[in-house]
């Protein structure tokens, strides 16, 4: 049967199944084939912390959501237009997110009495009419896959069943007019040494495609036209990979060898994985015995003149705090990446949150200022890595990069820059004495600062004549000798603070088409997409909303206070309970409307539209007493 594709401008698909069903891989492949068609897209993987929770249970459900469109995509989408549910648990865990009228493809083979009872269904939802408001497409995914692979004598039934995710991918590829060339190439490389498994996966993929074409269950197929994007060569990239590549690029542009000291932790480990596979770019990765040793190794390498990097998540930052303080005192370049997750303590390891801002800002003993930057999207992770290295090397300071679980695992198309056009990161090691002692002899003062940046000289071991000792004990200004002098400590504390406060940071740009918006919405980090999407929607409803996003959180852009005071109301959405709002109120004495949630998931566009509407309404004198009192 031939169908003419219907045109859609955007689609949100969620693949959901058991942890072992290969949903992340299915989602990745669909994403890649979608990117190749020129759609803009955004993804949200969502998986349990357990490696393999008991099969068929709610805690074991893993999902991957993809939003693609013919225009620029800012979020992974609030709610799926299509849910693929590989078992009853996946249906139950995700149904609340699926709007009525949307399509649900279910694998009927898994709706056995046993599987239903595992998640508390007494009657199958496929039979009791409870799904009447949705377009349910029942497909015996497992048995059709096994049947399609009947000729593969060398495979067990279990092995055949495992190919059902490729069948589902084939079916969805047909539904949304995706090509499967990329997936075929991927399978050929993945199973190069297992020809029978390769053939079986390809057969399952084709079976899915043909099933869509031949069965009458799927009368409609869809097309989403390519998005209009700036010219260039694109690839899809996750935040963690973009960070890793950004640091390799920074190492290349600065001429400093990259040394990563790291201890595995979710959701940061992929940075360690990617960098450990890039030794070819002079990258050393040292997997340490603990978080403290990870940063110690990075700091030791920085003392020796390398680009020192450590990667972790919130609990790891807590352990590294003392060493970060040492780096503040030593005034050596160092980059600390915190891929934030739900806290406190172990919290929600695989879920996202922005709740380490105050830890990064203040989580050390003594007056210990550290610059902080935060990427706003997966692709921006690349640029933020270069920016962090610039700040660290120019100002000789540890720098925090605050990413989060959503950016780390989420992906989007990235216009690949030419390496030769990346910002230069010049590094000058000190090689000559910079002062004279009382007798007129040339000497080296390790704490004689640059008059503009207040950075101290970086003289690395191996440089003759500049032998010096540094440490975490307070040092005398200029000479770096141990000093307990009260006035000297006061001076050094203030110099370190002044240095960080004086770091050159670009002005905050405000997106305000009306020029006189009623509300400014200000965000930081991964809320960029949902905030921008919500802003777009409120404007289309006629509201005047200005939008700005902070990539620099310490120091703030110089014009931030001015921007905040220019608007009658400022809304700050955060995935914490108001950490940036606290800093803004303290620094600028302005009122902030803090909009927060800590559900382990990004904001939906809808909830931010709601918050912005409330803020806009609050400024309207005509709001009636009857409907203005509840919010």
């Amino acid at each position: 049967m031939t169908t003419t594709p219907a045109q859609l401008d955007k689609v949100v698909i969620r693949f959901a199944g058991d942890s072992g069903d290969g949903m992340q891989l299915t989602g990745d492949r669909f994403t890649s084939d979608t990117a190749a068609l020129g759609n803009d897209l955004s993804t949200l993987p969502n998986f349990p912390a357990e490696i393999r929770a008991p099969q068929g249970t709610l805690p074991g459900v893993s999902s991957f959501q993809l939003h693609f469109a013919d225009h620029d995509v800012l979020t992974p989408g609030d709610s799926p237009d299509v849910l693929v549910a590989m078992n009853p648990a996946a249906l139950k865990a995700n149904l609340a997110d699926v709007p009525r009228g949307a399509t649900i493809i279910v694998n009927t083979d898994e709706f056995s009495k046993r599987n239903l009872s595992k998640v508390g269904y007494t009657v199958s939802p496929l039979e009791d009419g409870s799904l009447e408001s949705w377009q349910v497409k029942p497909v015996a995914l497992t048995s059709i896959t096994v049947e399609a692979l009947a000729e593969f004598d060398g495979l067990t039934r279990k092995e055949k069943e495992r190919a059902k995710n490729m069948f589902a991918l084939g079916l969805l590829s047909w539904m949304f007019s995706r090509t499967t060339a990329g997936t075929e190439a991927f399978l050929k490389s993945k199973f190069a040494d297992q020809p029978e498994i390769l053939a079986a996966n390809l057969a399952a993929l084709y079976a899915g495609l043909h099933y869509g074409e031949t069965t009458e269950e799927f009368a409609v197929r869809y097309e989403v036209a390519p998005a209009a994007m700036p010219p260039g060569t694109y690839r899809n990239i996750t935040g963690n990979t973009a960070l890793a590549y950004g640091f390799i690029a920074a190492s290349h542009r600065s001429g400093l060898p990259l040394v990563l000291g790291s201890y595995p932790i979710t959701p940061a480990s992929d940075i360690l994985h990617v960098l450990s596979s890039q030794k070819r770019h002079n990258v050393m990765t040292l997997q340490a015995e603990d978080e403290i040793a990870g940063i110690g190794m990075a700091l030791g390498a920085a003392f020796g003149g390398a680009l020192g990097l450590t990667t972790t998540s919130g609990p790891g930052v807590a352990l590294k705090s003392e060493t970060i303080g040492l780096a503040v005192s030593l005034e050596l370049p160092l980059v600390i990446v915190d891929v934030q997750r739900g806290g406190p303590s172990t919290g929600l390891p695989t879920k996202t949150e922005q709740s380490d801002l105050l830890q990064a800002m203040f989580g050390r003993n003594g007056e210990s200022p550290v610059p902080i930057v935060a990427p706003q999207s997966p692709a921006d992770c690349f640029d933020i890595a270069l920016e962090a290295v610039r700040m660290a090397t120019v100002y000789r300071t540890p720098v925090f990069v605050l990413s989060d679980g959503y950016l780390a695992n989420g992906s989007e198309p990235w216009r690949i820059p030419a390496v030769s056009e990346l910002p230069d990161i010049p590094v000058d090691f000190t090689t000559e004495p910079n002062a004279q002692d009382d007798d007129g002899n040339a000497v080296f003062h390790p704490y004689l600062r640059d008059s503009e940046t207040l950075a101290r000289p970086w003289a690395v071991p191996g440089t003759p004549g500049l032998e010096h000792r540094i440490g975490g004990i307070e040092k005398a200004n200029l000479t770096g000798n141990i000093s307990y002098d009260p006035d000297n400590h006061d001076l050094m504390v203030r110099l370190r603070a002044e240095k960080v406060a004086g770091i050159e940071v670009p002005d905050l740009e405000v997106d305000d088409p009306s020029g006189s918006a009623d509300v400014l919405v200000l965000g930081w980090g991964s809320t960029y997409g949902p905030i921008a999407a919500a802003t777009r929607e409120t404007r289309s409803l006629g509201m005047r909303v200005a939008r700005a996003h902070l990539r620099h959180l310490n120091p703030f852009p110089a014009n931030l206070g001015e921007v905040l005071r220019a608007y009658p109301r400022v809304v700050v959405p955060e995935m914490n309970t108001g950490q940036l709002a606290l800093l803004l109120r303290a620094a600028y004495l302005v009122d902030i409307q803090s909009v927060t949630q800590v559900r382990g998931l990004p904001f939906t566009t809808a909830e931010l539209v709601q918050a912005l509407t409330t803020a806009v309404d609050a400024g309207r004198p005509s709001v009636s007493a009857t409907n203005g009192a509840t919010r």
Partner: protein
Amino acid sequence: MTSTPQSIDLGMPRSGLADVPGLAADATKQTKKDFTSDQEVRWCPGCGDYAVLAAVQGFLPDLGLRRENIVFVSGIGCSSRFPYYLDTYGMHSIHGRAPSIATGLATSRPDLSVWVVTGDGDALSIGGNHLIHALRRNVNITILLFNNKIYGLTKGQYSPTSDPGTITKSSPAGSIDTPFNPVSLALGAEASFVARTMDSDRAHLTEVLRQAAEHRGAAFVEIYQNCPIFNDGAFQLIKDRDSQAARLVRLVDGEPVTAGLEDSRQVLVREPNGSVVFVPEAEASGRPVVVHDAADPNPTAAFALSRLDDGTMTHVPMGVFRNIDRPTYDDLVRDQVRSAVDGAGRPADDASLDALLRGSDTWTVT
């Protein structure tokens, strides 16, 4: 900068200093003064640290290295002030973490001779984890552990090497902790070089330091050091000329293990059950005498020697317990990077980085 050429593989272990630039052949001989910084030394009068500092300052010129290629990294504690007094590069870091900092430095800079100065509290309490991992990895660093069996800088609490029952401010009823034997611990972590020496024996200290510096890999040296303020006389039994003779067991590679002098000489023999025991020399004939072999790849015999001191100082072995050749962590890390670069056929450049960024799955928008 002159650099020592890569050593030629003659099947001999490479020196720990093989990649560290030495002084030119015609350079002026260095002296102790060259390694003495302008900082006033501030240990308590009579502290054993003075003797160790003097020995190190006196011994460093013998290595013939350029001063700028030597780095001392320390943690926190009395001993950790050490780097300030040496005119080399140095870092006085934070409590217990010096081995990890030294690991990052030594791995990224093969041209440096990296030393860690630490104490019994710094290395065995708060930094125990980093110590054992540096030793098992066999990072090319030299660790000097000053053991005075007490916390000095915090004014006299018991340490992880304090004898059971030690009365201190924090153990008024006596310490109930079972102490570590640092040498046993290092051997348990499979350290490739393990030695013990003493602050007051300058010649022995210097000889051990020389071997430690030349060892390629992690060299662990426990230095018995007297704290005259909080634990004075802790090692008196083996320092006193009269009592030390019977107690000190001077380990000499290739020689039988003995204690005592002349008529009261005892010889270490192996019992049928594998344990070792000292017997009077006269009774040793015909029994399997233990001959010290520091290069034995099996650490069992060295461990047995470390257990000769049961805490009473009846028999205290001194010298090099173990000195074996095994691959070092930092060499292996650098080898992997080098072979990845070599395998790529050309050095990393703009083009190779462009290729990395592009990956395999791209599309073009025109």
